[in-house]
């Protein structure tokens, strides 16, 4: 495994932080199991090249947050993150990742209605069945949010993401923003809607020959991920994503969620779309 210095430093810091017992801290112990369907896991723009797949995933977040001032206006959160995904057909996408996330949140006032600003950074090592995709994923976000009504909260933010892998094909970097609205339909049911825009590199798999993609690609590579030969193209593109979700608390420790995402990626005359359906069970202890 290859790892960056930043990754090691952050992971170690998170370990030390989580291990240290602080009187001002609340623990975060969250588990998630999910199943998803992606209508275009190959991210192909021609219909005949598109391949779909199911995946099962699990995630663990373990950490805590602490109050940096007497009024909890400034809150520091550290979690250790473990994620895995197993794809039913295209196993080269199956992966397990381990990393850490840190966030610093400032709340401008007292109570749930006060607006907040949160800066969050995460880094994780991802180990794929396809070794070429192995590498370090990191992201940084700046988010502002405000509960505008008792049941309605708005969030918007900027996100930077960076992926460093074994090959330039899978090296990706992007900038984007998002807007999210959540509405508490009942005491235990929340609805969410989100829009995001990302400008950066993507990897699209297509059956050759594709001279149109060759002209646009930063780099390309023959891959054996699918049954038939595909070529993977690294492209600069814009991706828009719309998502809707329903999030149901079953008990104070267990909840379930359903989510639909429409992802649309465009570069010049080339575009591809994916429909993603996700069902998850969440446990928070």
């Amino acid at each position: 495994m290859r790892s960056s210095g930043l990754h090691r430093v952050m992971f170690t810091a998170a370990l030390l932080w989580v291990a240290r017992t602080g009187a001002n801290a609340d623990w975060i112990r969250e588990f998630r199991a999910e199943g998803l369907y992606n209508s275009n896991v190959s991210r192909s723009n021609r219909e005949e090249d598109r391949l779909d797949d199911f995946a099962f995933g699990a995630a663990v977040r373990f950490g805590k947050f602490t109050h940096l001032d007497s009024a909890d206006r400034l809150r520091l959160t550290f979690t250790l993150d473990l994620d895995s995904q197993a794809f039913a057909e295209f196993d080269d996408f199956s992966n397990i990742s381990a990393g850490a996330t840190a966030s610093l949140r400032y709340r401008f006032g007292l109570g749930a209605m006060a607006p907040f600003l949160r800066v969050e950074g995460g880094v994780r090592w991802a180990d794929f069945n396809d070794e070429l995709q192995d590498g370090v994923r990191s992201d940084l976000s700046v988010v502002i949010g405000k509960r505008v009504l008792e049941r309605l909260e708005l969030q918007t933010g900027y996100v930077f993401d960076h992926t460093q892998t074994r090959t330039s094909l899978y090296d990706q970097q992007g900038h984007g923003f998002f807007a999210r609205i959540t509405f508490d339909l009942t005491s235990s049911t929340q609805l969410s809607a989100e829009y995001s825009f990302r400008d950066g590199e993507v990897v699209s798999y297509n059956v050759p020959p594709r001279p149109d993609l060759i002209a646009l690609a930063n780099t390309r590579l023959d891959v054996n991920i699918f049954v038939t030969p595909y070529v993977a193209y690294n492209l600069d593109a814009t991706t828009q994503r719309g998502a809707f979700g329903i999030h149901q608390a079953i008990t104070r420790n267990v909840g379930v969620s359903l989510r639909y995402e429409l992802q649309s990626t465009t570069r010049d005359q080339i575009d591809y779309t994916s429909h993603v359906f996700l069902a998850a069970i969440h446990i928070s202890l």
Partner: protein
Amino acid sequence: MLLFIAGATARAGEIAITVTDQRGAPVADAVVYAMPRSGKPPQRTQATSIAHKNQQFVPYVTAVQAGTLINLPNLDPVKHHAYSISPAKSFELPLYSGTPEKPLLFDKPGIVSIGCNIHDWMRAYVYVVDTPFFAITEADGRAQLRGLAAGAYDVEVWQPRLKGGPSANKQQVTVGGASAKVAFALDLRSGGFRPQVNPAASNGTYR
């Protein structure tokens, strides 16, 4: 909304109250209280407490007479930060464990909404009244006011989901020789929304 007054002249000292919503379902956590129509009500305050327990306030609704001391002990292994910005009682108890040394004095009638600055879903209400004759309905929507002197009273009701003020539901009752009965049918906001922790929340349990 006024439904009816039965037994307006009743056994001395008691009023039996039933509270339902607009569909006839019993309403819990409704504060019912009786104000003497003449004279000043006696002062009978008794200190009470609202606990932080399992990251909820217990009880959800508390009624007290103006001048009552209330403490907010933290029974959880994590710190809490209770606050209120309500005009009837504004306070802040920053990050604490255990029981605060000094209880808070609630000396102004009105509604006090209490929250926790750490755990946004935690909420409680204190309804401060100018009379010692108050009670809170149970799950069956019933409550009993006891110890009233014979005479005429205005009986009012308040609940966190109530549309309009408590005066809109005012009823007059005379306490005499037998137990009086009062029924309220309240116009409540729909949904029964009460914030609670949602492990599946898309914006995070803690933000």
